[in-house]
């Protein structure tokens, strides 16, 4: 038995025929080819497969592809605009918050979701936002640095930055 679904990924409309037991992770990677969504634990524990589902971060490995019918999804491939990296991506590069890189797309999405919720996250909010993402290489200090830099970047020249300057 198979299902026909329609959904939007990174602004692009897709239609597909899927098996009902298929996970959203396998659907995104193997059917649609979004390989930036990483497969790792496949049990909802490590955060490597994090995507935005109608604006909220979820582990795509424990969501049914069928549940994405009618949804709008964002993967790491959808963040750069016109060849320019998203400020969160650039900040991860600038601080060296990337080592093997496997966990990075999931982190980037969790941080994007955080900075969509607030441009001025507290230390506690930062910790909460990435507590479901596991990195085994760099340690978390550089990742937290990257998040703070990205937050300042997104606040722009008017926000806290101009106050600090004056």
């Amino acid at each position, binding site marked *: 038995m198979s299902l026909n679904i329609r959904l939007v990924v990174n602004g692009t409309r897709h239609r597909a025929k899927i098996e009902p037991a298929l996970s959203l992770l396998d659907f995104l990677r193997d059917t649609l080819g979004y390989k930036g969504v990483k497969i790792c634990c*496949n049990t*909802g524990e490590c*955060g490597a497969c994090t995507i935005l589902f109608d604006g909220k*971060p979820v582990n795509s*490995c424990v969501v049914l592809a069928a549940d994405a019918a009618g949804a709008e999804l964002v993967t790491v491939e959808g963040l750069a605009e016109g060849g320019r990296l998203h400020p969160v991506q650039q900040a991860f590069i600038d601080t060296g918050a990337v080592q093997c890189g496997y966990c990075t797309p999931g982190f980037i999405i969790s941080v994007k979701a955080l900075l969509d919720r607030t441009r001025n996250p507290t230390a506690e909010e930062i910790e909460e936002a990435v507590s*479901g993402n*596991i990195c085994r290489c760099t340690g978390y200090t550089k990742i937290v640095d990257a998040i703070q830099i990205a937050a300042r970047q997104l606040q722009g020249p008017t926000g806290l930055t101009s106050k600090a300057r004056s």
Partner: protein
Amino acid sequence: MDYFEPKTLREAVSLLARYGEKAKVIAGGTDVLVDMKFKEEPLCLVNIKRIPGMSYIREEKGSLRIGALTPIREIETSPLVREKLPLLWESAHQFASLQIRNTATIGGNVCRASPSGETLAPLLVLEASAIARFSKGEKKLPFTELFLGPGKTLLGAKGLLREIEVPLPSKESRGTYLKHAVRGAMDIAMVGVAVLVTPDGGGKKARDVRIGLGAVAPTPIRAKRAEKALRGKTMARALVEEAARIAASESSPISDQRSSAEYRRWIVETLTRRGLEQSWKAVTGKEVDG
């Protein structure tokens, strides 16, 4: 595998009546998908996610009513829950990770009936009820009777959880939920303890005490003998310590990869004592003394 997306409760319940044990209900899916990948696919999957009107939190006649499909994150971010049921809020806040809280539902956490299910000890202590739909009609099942064993509830194969009804505790009461795990986030509790204390008018004696224990028996349990030892008594240090020891003796934990049974009993004693002390202080402004 047969697959259905019923659009009404009636349709869902009739599918469960037809398929019985062969059917698996899926809501958020954070546990069911893992089972499907690493254990086996059910013969029939009933996805209730598309039934409208099953995700809500509302106050009605002295209770909060929470729809079975309400995501844990909605409970965590609800000002109503934060204000009226801080004990439930605390367990929602400590639940897995943000990603999982966005996906997992409270109904799924209840029906999964894991002894360590994060919201279960708090809901037991709050004396919640499950409102369940069967083909012959609706039943109200108190949480104190709902759980039969790991993964087993009075819902059986044919009942569907529609709503959780949580009576608002007395305004004079305070609760505490304490979880013991190696890592803060994304970790299953070795022990979870929920405590709710209501002092009497004088602020010396406990009018009511409720203690719920998670992950230390085949189901989440109430430590009834420990509660009885404190009810109507002056909250003195020696008595609170004695009640914590009784609570540990009421638990029947197993040894597994997370910890040994003996260690779990020690933790039950410690967390029960702490929960009682913290709740008492929060509500009376005074330490448990003497």
